[in-house]
């Protein structure tokens, strides 16, 4: 009779997940430059764009620069697709972010953003969803909002080229 192995202690699981997430956020200079931080609930990630004056595009309105909004959406999309890529190895313990390097980052093939409303000079939030993940290509949808979750100020879709992984053939 086989018995299910005892689940790992919660702090071990959290430590491993948070260490991996820190690698994705804190090791990328542009993410730091923009002032983006990430919250995690289980596997769900929410990115925050912490407002600062340098993010302004139109000083008269004032409004967040369209390039900042696009960057925030692309950062969130890359983070989500990287996270989805390592999740299984992270959970099984095959990948220990405290000792081993993370796989390389996916490369953006193309990115399309719709500007829906003015980005106000305050914090913004974003979540992404991987709609298709293969060995070589992934598709991601991402949405950003400010005060009201039901009134996004921008959304985007993006395609990524996945980094080569060990074993298996391309497909």
């Amino acid at each position, binding site marked *: 009779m086989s018995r299910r192995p005892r689940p790992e202690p919660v702090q071990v699981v959290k430590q491993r997940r948070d260490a991996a997430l820190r690698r994705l956020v804190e090791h990328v200079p542009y993410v730091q430059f*923009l002032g983006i931080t990430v919250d995690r609930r289980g596997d769900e990630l929410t990115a925050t764009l912490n407002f600062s004056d340098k993010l302004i595009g139109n000083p008269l309105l004032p409004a967040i*620069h369209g390039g900042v909004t696009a960057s925030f959406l*692309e950062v969130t999309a890359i983070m989500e697709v990287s996270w989805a890529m390592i999740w299984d190895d992270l959970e099984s313990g095959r990948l220990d972010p405290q000792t081993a390097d993370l796989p390389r980052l996916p490369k953006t093939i193309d*990115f399309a*953003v719709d500007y829906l409303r003015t980005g106000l000079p305050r914090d913004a939030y974003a979540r992404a969803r991987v709609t298709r993940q293969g060995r070589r290509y992934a598709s991601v949808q991402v949405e950003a909002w400010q005060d009201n979750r039901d009134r996004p100020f921008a959304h985007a879709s993006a395609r990524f080229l996945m980094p080569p992984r060990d074993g298996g053939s391309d497909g």
Partner: protein
Amino acid sequence: MDSDTKARIARQFIEAIPFSRALGMRLEEIGGGVAVISMPWNPDLIGDPERGVIHGGAVSALMDTCGGAAVMSHPAAPAGTATIDLRIDYMRAATPGAPLIARAECHHITRSVAFMRAVASNPGEDAPVAMATGTFTVERA
């Protein structure tokens, strides 16, 4: 207002945008619906630390700024403009350490919508880094 004065005002306007300043953008050419903007190499913009390649988001910011400038400089000059949508193809990684230069053209404009296409490349290198198309609002004074 002559074209030199217009170009000088446009340069001041673009270089006064806080985020464009933060990225060190410089207006190189403007007029007739075409704008050329350069962005120097800056390690703060790195998106892939292993390869030292700048983040696609910084390229998007350059494309968006350059596209908006091109629209503003069109002879059917709108009083103001805002991006409706922007789509970018990333053809290759930007060369680490090299500046980027974007050239945007407002190739069609209606009473309500301006259509833009743009190319970003590293100076002296033939293969473009990224290409973009976008649409912008046409605000009437």
